[in-house]
């Protein structure tokens, strides 16, 4: 504002106008300086008079906005008071009062922050924090309730100060924080230690009634476990430890056997030179034999014979020849110590050699036995280790019935009085499924069921004719090896868009989903998921020099071109290959991995391919070889190393790194990247990148729908956008948003997340399933600033994400980037 110009135009405004401007300008000055309303310290009055009638109008409208905020906040605080009363009556965690309180606190926090009421916003944030504490079990319910009651009083007092004095008093907040300290509640640590899961923060009405059983926070250091599983784990661990002693014994036996073998071999080695010398003697002529006294000098017999030979000149040749034969095994067998004189020293040596050989053979046999025993023990230990690991995984598992309960509650809530028409059948409720898997499946499954029930009960016209016909939903879960299969049957068709939502989650979990339409109005979804997200049971496949792992749960079957492989004619091979090409879209794995581009894939004969578990489009991934099936521990990659469809690796026993491919995710992302007109905006950093920015056609009109439960937010944005020439519409909740979308066909939707009836995510999901909204640009406008919300919004099809309070220039920049520069064509 230009203060120098201000006095020149004082006379253009009435006295009352000036008073209003003066009061409001004080407010604005303080807001612009520290983003909060003036506090009890008297602000320095510096009046600036507007020179422009538009600006005056803007200021006046801001007074209206403040009044609007005060009215709205008063209503919300009243709702909070009633909610707290209900909580006191219910005296338990699962109460609609808690959820109403949470929603109102969130709304007030966002709205107050936008208008600059720092104290009110902080108190409301504290309330959200306390509710999270209570929900996570970190705070005793009664203590939390006292804190919430005090918080509502503090809100009332602060709002009263605004209404009475025109500025926000900080005292109620300070007193409240003192009260928190007395109650031993530290509300400031929560943002670091307890980030909430999407299920609790973004909870739809369905999630709010969900049971807390099994809910856990991944960032929490504690984990609730099933006692039975825990005992089993202890039992298996003890057995594993008990194997230590037998294992050590087996190793000792191997050592003993090896020593024995070594000893026998040493004895053999000692005998070897003696036998060699005897062998040499046997080959020398008789004279030489006598002359060099080749016989052992210690042998009495030898000496007598030698002396006799010298005396008589007769050499007993035949005997000598026989005696000098080195390996007279049959003589050794006739060994008799009583007839020792019959044998020469050679015989004794031969006998010893035979004994040594026998010892070696026995020792070898002992080594073999000891090794076999060791191998058996190792196998037992591996098996026990596997049991411990499985039990540890089961520790993190939940029965399928937990999910079923949530689904049932969701159906009852959405169907209301028509719940009786819904037939709900479950089997395999006791099947244990990994907790992470189950939690990630919960939201899309709830959305699917919710949309199905809503579609069939409320939107499908044909049901008007057969209103008495019941709806059926069947659930079945079972385990096959390391894979969990969930089957969901519906008596009526499910919107394919709703299935797509679930499909994304399933693919993200290295699983697959297939749809079977049994009769005209019956369909079953088959979900195949790995039981654990830490172990990967996959196929080790080769593409060029690269070996990668593909999860078994994503592969329907392996295609082998046997004719081609057996060397039949090229015509046959081509024909076989073309058959696959006709029915499937074929990618070579290396092309998919972008290691090299092979454009002629379809024309070549496909020898080996993985047929993916995907209904549409049918996809085959050509590989050079399927090496083997492996089961390895998955190691998540650092964020900077993650690539589309590649978020984990597995390292084998030889130290080789294998990429774990999420093929279905790769295909999905490939399709997304190919879509035109997709813009991703990161408004908080005011930077954005475009995959391919499409400007709207010249004939497009610029109609913007604001969906927010806060009247203040709606009207302030409405004012801003209307001033820029946009045609602005408003919706107070999710249902009204859908109605407005259908009725008015806006170009852009500014969508809040936390809203009554259907929340922002629900609306996004429904929009995604309706082709008629494909041209609609959606910008999320929420006070949730975390990456998980941004990611989820993006995944559900939002084009941009803005955080409340959002600067005007960022809002305009975002809208213009999506709709083009002009508000009206």
């Amino acid at each position, binding site marked *: 504002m230009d203060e120098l110009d201000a006095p020149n135009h004082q006379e253009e405004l009435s006295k009352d106008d000036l008073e209003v401007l003066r009061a409001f300008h004080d407010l604005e000055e303080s807001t612009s300086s520290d983003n909060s309303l003036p506090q009890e310290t008297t602000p320095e009055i510096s009046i600036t008079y507007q020179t422009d009638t538009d600006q005056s109008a803007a200021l006046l409208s801001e007074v209206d906005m403040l009044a609007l905020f005060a009215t709205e906040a008063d209503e919300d605080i009243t709702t909070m008071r009633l909610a707290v009363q209900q909580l006191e009556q219910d005296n338990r965690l699962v109460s609609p009062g808690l959820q109403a309180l949470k929603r109102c606190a969130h709304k007030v926090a966002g709205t107050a922050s936008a208008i600059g009421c720092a104290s009110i916003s902080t108190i409301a944030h504290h309330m959200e924090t306390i509710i999270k504490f209570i929900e996570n079990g970190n705070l005793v319910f009664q203590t939390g309730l006292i804190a919430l009651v005090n918080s509502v009083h503090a809100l009332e007092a602060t709002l009263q100060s605004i209404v009475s004095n025109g500025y926000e008093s900080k005292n109620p907040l300070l007193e409240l924080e003192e009260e928190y300290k007395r109650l031993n509640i530290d509300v400031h640590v929560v943002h670091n230690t307890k980030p909430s899961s999407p299920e609790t923060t973004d909870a739809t009405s369905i999630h709010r009634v969900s049971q807390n059983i099994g809910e856990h926070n991944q960032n929490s250091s504690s984990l609730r476990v099933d006692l039975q599983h825990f005992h089993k784990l202890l039992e298996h661990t003890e057995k594993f430890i008990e194997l230590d002693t037998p294992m050590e014994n087996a190793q000792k036996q191997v050592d003993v056997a090896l020593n024995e073998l070594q000893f026998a071999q040493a004895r053999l080695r000692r005998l070897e030179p003696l036998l060699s010398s005897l062998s040499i003697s046997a080959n020398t002529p008789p004279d030489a034999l006598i002359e060099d006294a080749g016989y052992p000098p210690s042998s009495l017999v030898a000496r007598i014979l030698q002396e006799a030979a010298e005396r008589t000149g007769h050499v007993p040749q035949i005997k000598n020849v026989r005696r000098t034969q080195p390996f007279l095994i049959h003589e050794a067998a006739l060994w008799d110590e009583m007839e020792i004189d019959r044998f020469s020293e050679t015989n004794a040596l031969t006998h010893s050699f035979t004994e040594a050989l026998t010892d070696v053979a026995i020792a070898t046999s002992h080594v073999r036995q000891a090794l076999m025993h060791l191998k058996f023990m190792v196998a037992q230990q591996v098996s026990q280790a596997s049991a411990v690991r499985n039990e540890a995984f089961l520790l993190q598992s939940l029965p399928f019935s937990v999910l079923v309960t949530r689904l049932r509650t969701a159906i009852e809530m959405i169907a209301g009085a028509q719940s009786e028409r819904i037939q709900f059948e479950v089997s395999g409720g006791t099947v244990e499924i990994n907790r992470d898997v189950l939690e990630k499946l919960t939201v899309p499954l709830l959305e699917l069921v919710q949309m199905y029930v809503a579609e069939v009960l409320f939107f499908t016209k044909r049901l008007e004719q057969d209103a008495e016909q019941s709806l059926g939903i069947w659930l079945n879960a079972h385990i096959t090896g390391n894979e969990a299969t969930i089957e969901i049957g519906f008596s009526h068709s499910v919107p394919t868009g709703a299935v797509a939502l679930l499909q994304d989650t399933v693919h993200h979990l290295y699983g697959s989903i297939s749809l079977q339409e049994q009769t005209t109005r019956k369909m079953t979804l088959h979900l195949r998921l790995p039981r654990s997200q830490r172990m990967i049971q996959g196929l080790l496949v080769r593409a060029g020099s690269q070996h990668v792992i593909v999860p078994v749960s994503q592969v329907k079957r392996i295609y082998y071109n046997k004719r081609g492989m057996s060397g039949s004619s090229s015509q046959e091979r081509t024909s076989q290959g073309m058959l696959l090409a006709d029915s499937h879209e074929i990618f070579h794995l290396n092309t998919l991995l972008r290691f090299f581009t092979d454009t002629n894939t379809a024309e070549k004969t496909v020898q080996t391919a993985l047929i993916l578990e995907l209904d549409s489009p049918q996809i085959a991934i050509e590989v050079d070889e399927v090496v083997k099936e492996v089961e390895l521990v998955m190691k998540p990659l650092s964020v*900077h190393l993650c690539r589309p469809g590649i978020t984990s690796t597995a390292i084998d026993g030889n130290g*080789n*790194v294998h990429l774990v491919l999420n093929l279905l995710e790769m295909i999905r992302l490939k399709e997304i990247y190919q879509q035109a007109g997709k813009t991703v905006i990161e408004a908080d950093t005011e930077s954005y990148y475009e995959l391919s920015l499409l400007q709207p056609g010249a004939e497009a009109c610029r109609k913007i729908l604001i969906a927010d439960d806060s009247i203040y937010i709606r009207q302030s944005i409405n004012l801003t956008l209307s001033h820029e020439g946009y045609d602005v519409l408003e919706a107070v909740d999710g249902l009204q948003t859908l109605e407005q979308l259908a009725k008015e066909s806006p170009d852009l939707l500014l969508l809040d997340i936390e809203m009554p009836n259907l929340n922002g995510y629900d609306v996004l999901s429904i929009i995604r399933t309706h082709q008629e909204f494909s041209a609609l640009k959606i910008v999320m406008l929420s006070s949730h600033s975390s990456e998980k919300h941004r990611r989820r919004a993006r995944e559900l099809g939002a084009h941009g994400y803005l955080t409340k309070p959002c600067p005007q220039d960022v809002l305009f920049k975002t809208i213009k980037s999506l709709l083009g520069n002009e508000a009206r064509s």
Partner: protein
Amino acid sequence: MLPLHGLSTNDLEQMADEEFWNCARAQADIVPQISSQERNYQDQHLECELSQGNCLIPLKAIVEVMPPPHRYTQLPLIPSWMRGLFAWRGEAIPLIDLDMYLCGVSAFRLDGMLLVANYTDITVGLLVPSIGLTTTVQFEQVDPSTGPTVFYTPIRAGVIRGVYAEEPVLDVSALLPDVVQQIGMAAYYG
């Protein structure tokens, strides 16, 4: 023998319990001075021979030097100077061709030496054709003005701390975060 810090065993024996523990606490509170040997280690740099010249890497940043052979796995959408991933202590670590990264050209050979470098929580493998001796280079000896004769490509100037004896001294605290940032960006831009 334990250092008695000017006290005889006799002195220690005559101390009352409280005196003894006070003395022990006082000794425990003394901050050990960095020995000249330790300081020397802080200043030690390893000479790496690249195709265009040599460079110096602070030894304290190098966790392990691995001789060939090196096995690695390709990863899609990576910068030209990243070869892929290799397994190091049970984790998949990026393998960087330092020659290519610094000079833009590479006589890429897998028979070079692999230096596993770490800075805060970032660990990468730097593949260099060969390594030379270690040299003690003190902070003040590094000339921050690199001059035009240095061989690396100008866009890498940010990861060079300066020059010592005509050899660039790498700044690991800038190098490793830059490598990580560019690997992350490559996922989007190829």
